[in-house]
């Protein structure tokens, strides 16, 4: 007994709802409608990312230098490894979902329960990994200086490896404290103050002759341009304005702030989809345990939710390519 489909045998009533040209239930068709519209939303975001990237094609951050961290391996650089793991987890949870749908076709309640449970675990691991990745990105690892024009200057040693601000800058005593609305102008507030001032960074840079500055610009081999020592000093003294540690919606120590904005927006929107997918999966999971679909005589609800879950996986495949690979 299918509650969503009205089965009439009148084949001639094409406009009366009696005919099923697509041979799919109402619920499944509506899920496909939703998926197509959601796919267009995501492609709007990704195409906007492509737009900004083409706009700043010669100064875009290199993803391999940004996402190099793996949990529990401090200070080591392993580009791609953790994202590859996340991708695999999501594909794997897609597989358990499709196995649950298949078990549903055979009306096998215990198997549906087991595979749905695995799917929920996979989704939870993925959302957790994404939260960790966000936290690492927000915290940053090396620190940089922003110029008047909003460009990012990073510090490298003689071999071209990036150097942390903490490794060459001495923090002095600062009189300036964070301005809070309760102690001054009530309509003005500010975020956390950086650890160092720009003068301390200049002093530290002068004291370490092996350091030079790396700009955002890419050379013809796709590497970031490294300035000579004299040019570095000149650039830092005339244009350096602000210390940047980590990334947020306004600044980003890895390069243009648009990169961070799109990262937060697109992976955030995707992460929200995964999160709602996990919630819906949990609801379905309890319905399966309670025997709702057993009594209904069809596990089609698992199939519909499965469609959504696979779609989330599908979107991640594209986010993975355009954020981490290309």
């Amino acid at each position: 007994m299918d509650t969503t489909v009205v089965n009439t045998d009148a084949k001639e009533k094409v406009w009366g709802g009696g005919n099923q040209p697509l041979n799919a239930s109402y619920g499944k068709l509506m899920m496909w409608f939703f998926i197509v519209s959601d796919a267009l939303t995501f492609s709007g975001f990704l195409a906007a990312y492509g737009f900004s990237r083409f706009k700043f094609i010669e100064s875009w951050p290199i993803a391999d230098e940004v996402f190099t961290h793996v949990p529990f391996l401090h200070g080591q650089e392993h580009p791609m490894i953790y994202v590859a793991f996340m991708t695999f987890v999501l594909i794997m949870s897609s597989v358990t979902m499709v196995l649950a749908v298949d078990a549903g076709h055979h009306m096998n309640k215990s198997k549906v329960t087991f595979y749905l449970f695995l799917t929920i675990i996979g989704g939870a691991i993925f959302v957790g990994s994404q939260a960790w990745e966000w936290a690492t990105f927000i915290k940053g690892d090396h620190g940089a200086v922003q110029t008047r024009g909003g460009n990012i200057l990073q510090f490298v040693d003689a071999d071209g490896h990036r150097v942390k601000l903490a490794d060459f800058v001495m923090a002095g005593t600062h009189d300036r404290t964070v301005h809070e609305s309760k102690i001054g102008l009530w309509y003005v507030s500010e975020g956390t103050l950086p650890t160092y001032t720009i003068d301390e960074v200049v002093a530290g840079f002068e004291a370490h002759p092996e350091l030079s500055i790396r700009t955002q610009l890419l050379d013809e081999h796709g590497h970031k341009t490294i300035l000579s020592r004299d040019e570095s000093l000149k650039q830092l003294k005339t244009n350096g304005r602000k210390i940047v540690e980590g990334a947020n919606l306004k600044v980003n120590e890895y390069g243009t702030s648009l990169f961070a904005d799109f990262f937060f927006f697109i992976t955030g929107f995707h992460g929200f989809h995964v999160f709602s997918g996990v919630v819906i999966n949990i609801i379905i999971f309890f319905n399966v345990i309670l025997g709702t679909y057993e009594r209904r005589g069809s596990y089609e609800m698992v199939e519909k939710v499965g469609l959504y879950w696979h779609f989330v996986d599908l979107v991640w495949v594209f986010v993975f390519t355009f954020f981490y690979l290309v």
Partner: protein
Amino acid sequence: MAHAHKLSILRGTIKFKNVTQKIWGVLILLTIITAIEVVLGIYKPESLKAHFIGMKILNWIFIFLTVVKAYYITWDFMHMRDETASLRRMVVWTAVFLICYLIFILLQEGGYIESVYTSGFVKRDF
């Protein structure tokens, strides 16, 4: 849900005995493709950095492999292979047309603005 499942992938090159086996087969295929992507992404071979229609060959390879993955997720995990041809075309061609249109317009415009920035007396290095 009595309709039959089509059990072969890669245009009939690989055939499976049942649905469960097909699912594991597709998982292996997707894992291999992802592994190729990751290895290429880590090592970035110099020979694939030549440009072809505005982009590196390596990037074209990534995009091609991604579309292949998307095909198998939609066709086998979302059961598109077993739906009627009209449902399949409604969903796939609508999305493909609109997405290609959107991407073309935005990337074209992005490239134009980039050319204004680099050759149009806009100072950015300060």
